[in-house]
């Protein structure tokens, strides 16, 4: 469902993403791992059509990110790094705006809201403005916004960042429950999360793919915890 071909993007002299290629199929949860500044966010932003690649391309659900970016954005749900939102709006107004933009109206909108609001546990703060919410709630509003049109492809940039342990557990459960019939890419620093939710993991550093494997195979191959595997791989390659 997602096919990335030689995607490359630089900012001035810094090459953020340096020709990465991979495919993700339905039913897979891909964890993008890497140290800070590895290029995870840049890669995800390109897939979500927010950044234009310098070269290379990708397709999402068969639509090209360069030539058909509106269709790509229509078919994917994207949660950005700091879950940006319009802070002066209430959650209700905000989700209604997203429905407007995604052409969800009438009964369909009611159904979508009834599904997504309990799913992200934001009923209790539904009428509060977003700026008054804690970081964890803001993150969940971001998640609700990404799920509202029940997309086939989900791109989540650090979905559990800023959540407390209970909320982390809930979000992981949510991702697991959706894993079967969606294609999900998440980026994270938290390695235990990869073990719990990801069926496949790609480790990138300095914009290049170092490893493309599954968490189990990695542990088997290196005979140690994922933490150590991560350190071994990223440090060895960088040095």
């Amino acid at each position, binding site marked *: 469902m997602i096919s990335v071909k030689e995607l490359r993007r630089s900012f001035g002299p810094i090459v953020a993403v340096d020709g990465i290629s991979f495919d993700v199929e339905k039913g897979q949860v891909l964890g993008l791992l890497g140290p800070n500044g590895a290029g995870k966010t840049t890669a995800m*932003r390109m897939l*979500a*059509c*927010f*950044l234009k690649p310098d070269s290379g391309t990708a397709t999402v659900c068969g639509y090209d990110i360069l030539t058909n970016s*509106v*269709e790509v*954005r*229509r078919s994917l749900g*994207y949660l*950005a790094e*700091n879950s*940006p*939102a*319009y*802070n*002066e*709006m209430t959650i209700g*107004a905000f989700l209604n*705006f*997203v429905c*407007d*933009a*995604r*052409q969800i109206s009438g009964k369909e909108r009611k159904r979508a809201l009834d599904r997504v609001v309990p799913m992200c546990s934001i009923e209790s703060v539904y009428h509060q403005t977003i700026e008054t919410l804690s970081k964890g709630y803001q993150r969940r509003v971001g998640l609700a*916004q990404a799920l509202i049109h029940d997309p086939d492809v989900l791109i989540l940039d650090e979905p559990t960042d800023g959540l407390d342990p209970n909320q982390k557990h809930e979000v992981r459960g949510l991702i697991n429950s959706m894993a079967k019939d969606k294609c999900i890419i998440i980026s994270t620093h938290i390695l235990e999360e990869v073990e719990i939710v990801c069926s496949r993991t790609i480790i990138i550093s300095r914009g290049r793919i170092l490893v493309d494997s599954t968490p189990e195979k990695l542990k088997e191959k290196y005979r140690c915890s994922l933490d150590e595997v991560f350190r071994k791989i990223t440090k060895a390659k960088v040095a």
Partner: protein
Amino acid sequence: MHSFWAVFKRELKSYFTTPIAYVFLVIFLSFSAYLPFRQGFFEMRQADMRAFFMNLPLLFVFMVPSAAMRLWAEERRVGSIELLFTLPITVTQAVLGKFFAAWLFLAIALALTFPMPITVCYLGEPDIGLIITGYLGSLLMAGGFLAIGCFFSVVSKNQVISFVLSVVACAVLVFAGRPTTLNYLSTLLPAGLVSAIENMSFQTHFESIQKGVLKFKDLSYFVLLIVGWIAASSIVLDERKAS
């Protein structure tokens, strides 16, 4: 089209859910009413609104950029632009949606000056046509200033910078057509150039519409100005949205 409406609706509402609308309206309405009275609105003993419209260009030079500065600067600073452009909305739809929302807001501000025409109608028998073209000219001028403000809001993430730049740009376009500037310029430059500068100014076209005659020349000036600055905003925004 639905994306345009989504952006338009959200933007218009955001003026009224934040204090911006109220602060803007109070200040705009008090100044727009105060200035004509200071200049002898009643003493003139003429049932027309010249004194009111005459002050608008100068008032708009400050007021319109203050309504426009947040359009994109805020969006880029907070990061909500990433949300906006990962929804199925094109840059042009978003720019137009925001522009028309802000324009409608300014139209509301203008409409709220209705006590002025009512006063004039109560006291005498003014030429209604003149008042209508006066308002139309003001609305077009607001649109022109707004398009300029929108552009500078795209250029800088910092609202103060975008405000100052658009005030300067609008002021240059207004003052270029004032008699004092033109008299001075005519001592330095050839007549053709002076008339070109005069024709580029807001003031000239605004006054021309004030006279009650809608000329194609004046209308096309405003339309081209708006289209040009909006197109420039879209192009620059497409390049800079992620930076």
